[in-house]
């Protein structure tokens, strides 16, 4: 009983800590002028928001481009990451640790080095469509998150169910589709969520790979962040956060549907 109020207080403090920065952002996005020491601005306006969704604001274009690149990056992660994670979790082979380290390398190689390498890469891949080349860069950045998440679930699953299915006649593809994938769903959802969010936040790789021509949301926002226009920057920041919030809600919803399906009690 003593523990509960303490828990509630801690959760309350944590929630405040996360939510507090959003309060001034919301206020700033609805005013042009909010000088110190005023507690609240004297004049309110929705100008920043109308600008955002105007042709020169390019918010829709930014969201759409970000979404397309993130979706291609996710597809790439699925195609490359699941077989890689499976091979690493289920097989023993010489040099396994090296392969694993290379796959996780983007996590611990200094960002500057990757970016310089990527720049060279961008020149060579110039013939590719901007969406595709940008997504390739995003795959490099996001793959470690995806592989690590899926690999962990594969390790938990082991090979015993595969053996059981194989004896019942299932080939590798059926085993994957009917046994492994349904059991991978929770980590697949988490991995996909991470890929989308990380891809969505990339600035430099997008800029380098597309030569600054593909305007994803971070690229749209950046010039305003430099301009010192607090109202527009606040509005963009909130807009930037909205899809992440949406993804988070979708993630939890899908996870819940999946869990309910698996623990569904028969009557």
């Amino acid at each position, binding site marked *: 009983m003593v523990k509960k109020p303490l828990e509630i207080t801690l959760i309350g403090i944590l929630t405040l800590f996360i939510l507090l920065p959003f309060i001034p952002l919301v206020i700033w996005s609805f005013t042009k002028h909010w000088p110190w020491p005023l507690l609240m601005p004297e004049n309110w306006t929705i100008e920043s928001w109308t600008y955002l969704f105007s042709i020169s604001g390019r918010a829709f274009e930014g969201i759409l481009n970000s979404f397309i690149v993130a979706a291609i990056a996710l597809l790439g992660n699925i195609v490359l990451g699941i077989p890689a994670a499976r091979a690493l979790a289920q097989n023993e082979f010489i040099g396994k640790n090296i392969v694993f380290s290379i796959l996780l390398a983007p996590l611990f190689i200094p960002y500057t080095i990757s970016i310089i390498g990527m720049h060279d890469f961008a020149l060579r891949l110039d013939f590719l469509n901007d969406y595709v080349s940008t997504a390739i860069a995003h795959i490099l950045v996001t793959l470690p998150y995806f592989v690590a998440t899926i690999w962990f679930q594969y390790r938990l699953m082991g090979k015993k169910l595969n053996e059981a*299915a194989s*004896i*019942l*006649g299932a080939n590798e593809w059926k085993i994957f589709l*009917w046994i492994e994938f349904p059991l991978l769903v929770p980590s697949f959802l988490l991995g996909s969520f991470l890929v989308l969010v990380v891809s969505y936040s990339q600035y430099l790789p997008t800029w380098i790979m597309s030569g600054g021509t593909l305007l994803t949301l971070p690229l749209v926002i950046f010039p305003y962040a430099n301009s010192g226009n607090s109202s527009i920057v606040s509005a963009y920041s909130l807009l930037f956060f909205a899809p992440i919030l949406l993804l988070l809600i979708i993630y939890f919803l899908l996870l819940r549907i999946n869990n309910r399906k*698996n*623990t*569904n009690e*028969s009557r």
Partner: protein
Amino acid sequence: MHLDQVTIKIHQDSIINSLSLSIHPGEIFVLMGPSGSGKTTLLKGIAGLLSLTSGRISWENGIGTTGLVFQEPRLFPHLTVLENIAFGLRVQGVATKERRLQAGNFLKSLQLENLGNRYPHQLSGGQQQRVSLGRALILNPDLLLLDEPFASLDTSLREDLISWLYQLQRRLGFSILWVTHYIDEALSIADRIGIIFEGKLQQIGNPSEIFQQPDSEKIAHFLSLPNRFSKQQWQNWFQRDLPLPQTLNRGWIDSNHLQIIDEESQLPSNGIKEGLYSIISGFIMKVKPNREGYTLTIQSNSETLEVSTIGWSKVPALQESIKIKIMFEHIYWYSE
């Protein structure tokens, strides 16, 4: 099914060494052997989970099918009991309606009626293992491979399941290659028993042959046969040369066949001619109660014998001095 000179190597280690074996239709063949003797490897080899390094598997009708049931049920946790049982049919491309019907009908034989829509985690250990058996049996395998399927269950449940499976097998007529390390399990179901050591079959026979005539001291030791002594020791006790072939140089006697005698009943009674016997004296070192009475550990000079008594009314006392009568005809002889 015939195994012909089958060898299975894992990482250059020979786990199964040119093993040959035939299993007849409708037969229950029990494979026994110590841990690491290659039992599971052999089953996996037959089931196709491991490839044979050399040798071949052949079937009387050309092609044969196998089903393998592991020690743990290995049910698919996201599928219901019905879906688990129907999994093999789904792989074969049987239509949903048809396979649900077949699996549903099969539930009755498995004594799992009304549990078809449950998930594995909602079943008891015994029920889970029955689903696992059902999942293999619904495909009508020619040979069912069992890898200690009931080892993790408690004794009474294990006995129930063994007798259930035995009856099912006699009714449906498939063959079983059954790996177990429980001697009672082997005796209650086996048509034949094979003993495997270090990837080689050491002896094959029906249960009574295996127990009465173990091929070697190693097998006798593995079967935990009591009162195993060299011919020389037996001759010391009988104080004469025993009329035995040269090759049979060891003998064992069941603890039930050793008779504790009183001083007065030592002499042959009523003039009825008894066979060759010996009486040895010793004292009680250990008393262990069992279902019939007591199992006594008797020290006689430098040797230790195990004697069973019937009834609990008279509790043997430790260090008590006793005499034991050994009938020559009750000793089973085998080679070292």
